């Protein structure tokens, strides 16, 4: 990497100083360099490159932090291998923190000590973002969201047209001319969001959810102004941009005066808005925020929709999105839904809060320069799927679905990949 200006370096270091909170301070001081986290990270397991072990990422940010902010690092830098923030360390940071980590957090729970490795990586990303060193491929996704309102730059007219077409389809399917996909309606119970991949590539998942809302006689709406559940600035680490995107969603809930916000099947979208956005915006949300996974489970449990599990004849397995399970605590709901919608369900091993990342998280799907690595680390997921013997893989996350589709063709898995809403819609019994 070329020479960095003093100003750029200071900007990066300022982030490390600013993040000097207990969680960061503790994690930066706790690693004992035992290396036992290596086998918990798919980057190391699939590629056996020592540079990819989680502890290496910890060591890198630790060495920079200590060089500038600790007595030992300032006085005896060689003793703890304290490193300066310069072109060389920055290049290493970019490669490891953006290109060799999906922020899946699996290493956290297996670390011998309990170091929050994923948090350290996200702070390293925040530092690089502040220095203007986010990979352009990832940044372009954020820029698209900032300038067009959604990360796929879908024009509003095209979006509305797609939804109108889906509405027609819905009417035909349920044989009811009054069935609708309500747009920009005020005072509804639910404001439902979408991952822009849905209108762009997978409109059937919108149909599925619309059919479920129809069956549940739900009062709901979609905003054509701000429907994008994703927040890729959470991945770049640019908190100012993450704040702008989160604020738009908050404003939309207020504007439409809906009682609850339902986040579409999107792991990081759920994490970014439900758990991170209140902190970006320094406010408590005065309305409930839930995922569609929780909503579907509630519909089934309360009898608001009827499902028939015998309609699904195939063997089904579940891929847990890291952000939803490990960082979002939603582990039982999807299993409950599956227990009611399929007869032959098999778990992957490991699963739940111990799941393996699909390899597409952390913004990897946007960073084409790391495509080869992404497919390589996905081999572990492909093997897991093969071992289940399932012909259908369900995942409540459009990002994961995208990666799984690519793994499906790359590793010739010959499985069908579905979202949870699609599965529920297939099992739906309309009365």
């Amino acid at each position, binding site marked *: 990497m070329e020479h960095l200006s003093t100003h750029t370096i200071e900007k990066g270091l300022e982030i490390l100083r600013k993040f*000097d*909170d*207990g*969680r960061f*301070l*503790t*994690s930066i*001081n*706790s*690693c*004992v*360099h*035992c*290396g*036992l*986290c*290596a*086998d*918990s990270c798919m980057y190391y397991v699939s590629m056996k490159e*020592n*540079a990819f*072990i989680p*502890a*290496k990422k*910890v*060591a890198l940010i630790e*060495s920079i932090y200590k060089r500038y902010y600790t007595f*030992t690092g300032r006085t005896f830098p*060689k*003793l*703890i*291998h304290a490193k300066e923030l310069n072109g060389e360390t920055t290049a290493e940071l970019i490669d490891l923190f953006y290109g060799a980590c999906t922020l899946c957090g699996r290493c*956290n*729970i*297996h*670390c*011998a*000590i*309990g170091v*929050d490795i994923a*948090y350290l990586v996200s702070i390293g990303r925040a530092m690089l973002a502040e220095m203007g060193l986010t990979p352009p491929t990832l940044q372009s996704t954020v820029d698209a969201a900032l300038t067009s309102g959604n990360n796929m730059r879908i024009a509003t007219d095209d979006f509305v047209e797609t939804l109108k077409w889906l509405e027609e389809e819905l009417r035909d399917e349920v044989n009811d001319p009054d069935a609708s996909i309500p747009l920009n309606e005020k005072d509804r119970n639910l404001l439902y969001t979408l991952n822009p991949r849905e209108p762009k590539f997978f409109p059937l998942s919108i149909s599925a959810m619309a059919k479920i809302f129809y069956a549940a006689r739900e009062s709901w709406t979609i905003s054509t102004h701000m429907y994008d559940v994703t927040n890729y600035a959470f991945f770049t680490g640019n908190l100012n941009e993450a704040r702008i995107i989160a604020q738009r969603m908050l404003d939309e809930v207020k504007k439409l005066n809906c009682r609850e916000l339902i986040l579409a099947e999107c792991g990081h979208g759920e994490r970014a808005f*439900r*758990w991170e956005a*209140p*902190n970006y915006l*320094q*406010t*408590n*949300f005065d309305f409930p*925020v839930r995922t569609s996974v929780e909503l579907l489970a509630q519909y089934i449990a309360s009898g608001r929709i009827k499902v028939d599990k015998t309609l699904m004849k195939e063997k089904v397995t579940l891929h847990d999105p890291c952000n939803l399970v*490990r*960082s*979002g*605590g*939603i*582990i*039982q709901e999807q*299993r409950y839904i599956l227990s009611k919608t399929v007869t032959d369900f098999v778990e992957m091993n490991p699963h*739940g*809060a111990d799941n393996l990342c699909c390899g597409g998280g952390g913004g990897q799907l946007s960073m084409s320069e790391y495509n080869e690595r992404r497919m390589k680390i996905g081999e572990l997921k492909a093997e897991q799927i093969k071992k289940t013997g399932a012909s259908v893989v369900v995942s409540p996350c459009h990002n994961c679905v995208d990666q799984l589709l690519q793994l499906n063709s790359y590793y010739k898995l010959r499985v069908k990949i579905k979202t949870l809403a699609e599965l529920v819609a297939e099992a739906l019994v309309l009365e």
Partner: protein
Amino acid sequence: MKWYLVITYISLVVCIAGCLYHVIQIIRHRKTRDFSKSADTVGSAITYSFTKAMNPARKESAYLHVPTYIAGMLYHLGTFLSAVLLFVFLFSIDLYRTIELFISVFLMVSILCGTAILVKRIFSKLLREITVIDDYISNILVTAFQVCTLVYIHFSLPVYYIAASALLLYIPFGKLRHAVYFFAARYYLSLFYGHRGTWPPIKH
């Protein structure tokens, strides 16, 4: 009072003061407010973090590395034992003699474990990737302290106090301060996973 005892007492004070500094840092930088709506399982997550989450059957860092895990546990136990014995020696408490054979054998095993960990660090390519001089110094100081403790049980040599002092003085500055940060790390992890409802896990 003998000169080496004076040095040991001074080192002990420095060590306690240094560790207290870290504790104060941890408290001073304690978690700022989280605005997101908590899943309200933080209390049980803290308990889980220090108990079941540490169960070797649940941690890959343990069950995928059984020999290293056992060596590490024994080595840590040997260190705690040596620390307790330091107080026993310093304050002339005469209770260990009855169990000195047991202690000696245990320390021998612990020293072997510490040496094995050091050898692994030297020869493992993976470990060398993340090892810094501090790691070697920490390991050597702790192992030397245990060796001197073992020797001191049978022969009261002043070198024991020198080894103890060196270790005490080093604790707050090198990686050995994880003795303090370990608890904070597990606390913060439970705060995160408890707030979000991931911990404690619900059986299904």
